[in-house]
């Protein structure tokens, strides 16, 4: 090291690597933790941890129905740190889903989906779907009662897509039922196809951030000074990364990844539940005809997601959490309304007799599909009308309220499915399960 070494400058090698990912200088306000909560960076780090722990697990896992379960048992019981490796893979997968989802909410609630960031919004949706798919294909691999039936339920959902549904299902499973071919398919998708796609898209995703001029900033901060990425941003990233890794090791040491009895294709456990991130969907299926829960809702959501950046907006409030004071206040109303309306919907639908039994002469697509859909959509519409009158919302605040209601509803549905559904999927308190 020469005498004029400067500790505020990284070594040449490190410099090259960091400055390929980051610009040399960034806007000072983007350093504030509450601008992004570091969620995108956390997701990226978790993907790296997934790859690393996944590669370790591959040394011991055998993807065949005869050996898969035993290979997991051997890994956990016969190998030093085997259980820890699996726990870390499990918990980083759970955290990855959470951070990706929260990252998406951050982008929505700071208006960062607008042009020129729209391409990153689109590829963000694709990446979120890849994260879900990656999680889901990994779910089957332990081949226990939990994973076998969760995958059976989830893939049966595909049958309700008209015309192409059962063909998609057969391609995914490599046959009509979950068996050896399905395990081969899932293993290869999980350990090969999806990770490669994800890494490529992540590269593109990062490059687009630079292309858009860095993380979003509010108009009032546009003229703030630029500062050096190293050490200001890099030091902060390192802190977040180390805290996250510490939390992950804590989780992995304290809580084991679940493993039930070996899969038995003849007996489904009672209750049989989908993976936790699909539990909102499974809860929805108790109240809605499968065609609505599996086809109508996801298609509407996806189309709305891709259409979002093209809606003409009248304000320029991006970069500010919840857009404005008005948006914040209306958002709290939307949050409470989503909470109350969803809980009421679940309770009323539970108490009411089956509409099919009441009106057996009307097709169930109408009684358990169209009618509850109209009730739910009508309720949301009337509430938004009230909110619009109360706060005179502009368009982006209005959209924000719709998003809040949808997110809260899905969260309530998920919690109901995970915590409040016991034997026979009946409603009960968590301590009665």
């Amino acid at each position, binding site marked *: 090291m020469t005498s004029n070494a400067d500790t505020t400058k990284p070594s040449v090698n490190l410099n090259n690597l960091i400055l390929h990912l980051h610009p040399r200088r960034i806007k000072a306000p983007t350093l504030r933790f509450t601008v992004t909560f570091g969620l995108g960076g956390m997701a990226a780090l978790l993907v790296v941890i997934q790859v690393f722990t996944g590669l370790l697990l591959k040394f011991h896992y055998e993807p065949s129905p005869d050996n898969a379960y035993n290979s997991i048992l051997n890994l956990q019981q016969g190998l030093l740190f085997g259980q820890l490796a699996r726990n870390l893979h499990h918990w980083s997968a759970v955290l990855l889903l959470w951070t990706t989802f929260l990252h998406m909410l951050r982008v929505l609630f700071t208006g960062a989906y607008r042009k020129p960031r729209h391409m990153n919004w689109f590829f963000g949706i694709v990446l979120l779907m890849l994260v879900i798919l990656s999680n889901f294909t990994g779910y089957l691999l332990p081949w226990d009662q939990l994973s076998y039936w969760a995958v059976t339920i989830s893939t049966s959902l595909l049958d309700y897509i008209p015309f192409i549904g059962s063909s998609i299902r057969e391609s*995914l499973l490599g*046959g009509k039922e979950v068996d050896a071919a399905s395990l081969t398919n899932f293993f290869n998708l999980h350990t090969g196809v999806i990770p490669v796609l994800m890494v490529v898209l992540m590269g593109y995703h990062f490059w687009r951030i630079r292309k858009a001029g860095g993380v979003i900033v509010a108009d009032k901060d546009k003229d703030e000074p630029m500062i050096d990425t190293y050490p200001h941003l890099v030091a902060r990233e390192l802190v977040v990364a180390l805290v996250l890794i510490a939390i992950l090791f804590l989780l992995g040491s304290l809580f084991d990844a679940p493993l039930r009895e070996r899969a038995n*294709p003849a007996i489904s456990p009672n209750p049989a539940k989908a993976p936790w991130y699909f539990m909102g969907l499974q809860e929805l299926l108790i109240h809605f005809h499968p065609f609505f829960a599996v086809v109508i809702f996801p298609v509407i959501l996806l189309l709305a997601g891709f259409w979002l950046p093209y809606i003409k907006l009248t304000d320029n409030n991006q970069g500010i959490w919840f857009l404005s004071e008005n948006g914040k206040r209306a958002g709290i109303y939307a949050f409470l309304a989503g909470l109350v309306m969803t809980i009421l919907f679940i309770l009323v639908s539970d108490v009411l007799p089956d509409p099919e039994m009441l009106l057996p002469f009307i097709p169930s697509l109408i009684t358990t599909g169209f009618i509850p859909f109209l009730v739910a959509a009508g309720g949301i519409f009337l509430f938004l009308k009230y909110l619009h009158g109360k706060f005179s919302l502009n368009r982006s605040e209005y959209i924000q309220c719709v998003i809040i209601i949808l997110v809260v509803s899905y969260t309530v549905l998920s919690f109901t499915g995970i915590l409040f559904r016991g034997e026979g999927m009946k409603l009960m308190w968590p301590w009665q399960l």
Partner: protein
Amino acid sequence: MTPALSDKKAKDTSGRRDFLRKAWPVVGLVAAAEFLLFTINMLRPGKELSKSNPISTLKIIGNVEDFQVNSVTTDRVNKLFLVRQQDGGFLALSLICSHLGCSVAWDEPNTRFICPCHSSAFDKFGNVVNSPAARALDYFPVTIEAGKVKVDISRKMKRKKFDKSQVTYAL
């Protein structure tokens, strides 16, 4: 109106170039679609051309007299219920719920099949008595030969609801 020679030449060139510029992405998209279909096809099960020991799909479940009138027998190995109806007819119902593929169980006191996943319920003809299931349990064709009840488990039949023709009688 006669355009200058150089103009005309330029226009021709740009027309051809324009066409090629537009054609390339189309060709690329077609190639990408082909590659995608090729990939998805690799996931699907192929025809099994060589099988070490072919297993018959026609299963003998038991003798006719083994099954009491008005009873339900659970066969978890072949994933079916053999139901002997009030009038002595046989009906083989699939163990798999028509809603989302969980395995249903016979609830004797309430005389109905109940699914543990979403509490769908079916009567002993397989008809839905409680949603969310939207159609009856699948059935398998039953044949009775020389006093033996046989079920072809390769032929799982989908149906909206029960029909008399799905029941087989011992002669």
